């Protein structure tokens, strides 16, 4: 298991698209260091030849009948939009 020195908060905050303040970085770094040290316990488990479990009761290939159903109306879909105009979500300009 990698050690906690590999834990680069700036890189991770960038991947997660969250700005962190200097105070948050200092606090989270220490707290998550403790959590990672605890998680390292898993290295002791013998997982040789063990299959991973993604879901407790694996269900695969769940098919739905191809029948159209009513979805959200445009009005309902836009109801919680931070900014909207002409039945569309408004965002800052993304292309020049």
């Amino acid at each position, binding site marked *: *298991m990698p050690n906690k020195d590999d834990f680069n*908060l700036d890189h991770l905050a960038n991947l997660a*698209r969250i700005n*962190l303040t200097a105070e948050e970085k200092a606090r989270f770094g220490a707290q998550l260091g*403790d959590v990672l040290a605890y998680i390292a316990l898993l290295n002791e488990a013998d997982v040789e030849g063990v299959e991973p479990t993604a879901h407790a009761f694996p269900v695969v290939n769940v098919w739905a009948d191809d029948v159209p159903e009513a979805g959200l109306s445009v009005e309902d879909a836009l109801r919680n939009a*931070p900014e909207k105009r002409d039945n569309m979500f408004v965002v800052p300009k993304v292309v020049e």
Partner: protein
Amino acid sequence: MAEDILHSTISELSGRLGRGEISSVELMGAVIARTKEVDGRVRAFNSFDEADALSQARASDKRRGAAKVAGVNVGPLEGIPIGMKDVISVAGQPLTASSRMLENFVSPYDATATRKLKAAGAICWGRLNLDEFAMGSSTENSAFHTTCNPWDLGRVPGGSSGGSAAAVASGEATASLGSDTGGSIRQPAALCGVVGLKPSYGRVSRYGLIAFASSLDQIGPFARSVGDAASVLGAIAGHDPRDSTSVRMDVPDYGRGMADLAKSGRRWRLGIPKEYFGEGLDPEVGAAVQSAIGEYRRMGCEIREVSLPHTRYAVGAYYIIATAECSSNLARYDGVRYGHRSKDATDALDIYFKSRAEGFGAEVKRRIILGTYVLSSGYYDAFYLRAQKVRTLIRRDFLEAYREVDAIVTPTSPTPAFPKGDKTSNPLAMYLNDIYTIGVNLAGLPGISIPCGFTRAGLPIGLQVIGQPFKETELLAVAAAYEAATDWGSRHPNL
């Protein structure tokens, strides 16, 4: 009249409603009055819509009247106020997840569990507080306020469904719904002295539940009796084409199944896992649980020691899997289509960085960061894949134990309710509070917490019974047998 309405069970109230002794409007009115009287101190609710609740109650009274004329029976939940954790969608009502991110969000549709409760005649009542996005064990991570434990207002109610537990304990709802990802129903039920049931993974549809960790999340009830929990489960369980992980299995009549099992005098074989009684268990909690096991023995149950050898890895595996899934699930909160959008954002990328920085609280950020780390390139095998393999071992432990026992009996939480502020600066200590409940989620099993005593200081203690996959009827029957032999549920907090 009011006082006994407020602490009555669903089955008692259903009888009184059926005999015409009270109306649903009177019941709802009493619950609203109680909420106004005590919620300034308990703070179980984020919000409630009095007019909407009374209008649902009026509609219920009308349905009951019409059913009487037609000579047909109504179900046990008809006209009963059921509180809703603020992560379960109710059309037209707020859905905040106790987060600034969704502070102004209004649900465009009903969750399947909500739709089924309404179809059963229940009144969907209020929006109950939680740890932000259900991440926490105390409700102290709510962006709005901390809910207080009704038994001692200076202590936490547990979490993440702390509002759902506190509302039932304090008479502000007859029952409620919560969600359980690592113990978020069972632990607050234990700390507040009520019954809390986490069904098997896949038993209840997650459609309309705000996702935290999709392979672990499950909706379930809080109630004042095991029978009431069974009634609510019966209403909300079942396959749903809108949740591909909900199972295609018939929903049994849990109440009848429990009664049949009680009549049959079946001699339950109960497993006591030695790993759940070690270091960190509060002596008063340990003593209450041992005395509950003694009660089961007196009833004629066979008590066997079992071993769940991989228990020590459960919390670590959970915090890899749950944070990985949450970092992925919460990527949707980007400030574009709904949720908080930063007013200072200047371009598209800036919207993400600033909206998420402003909208999420500290614990949510910590978990997203940790989840991002364990999934990031080069670390996936070491963390996530290893945790999933450990999950297999944990699940095998339980299934192995079930070859010789029908159910497993443990403490729900290692300690009674702790004082507010006790663990807020130490996330790891908070995580370890879920040590007895987390394995159940990893293995997808049903589990229930029922009251089993009080500490000398008067704080409730919970007993956890863990069942076999999809054998909720047996689980409920084992829990009900203990409940029938004791009267812990008859005590109420003095508010």
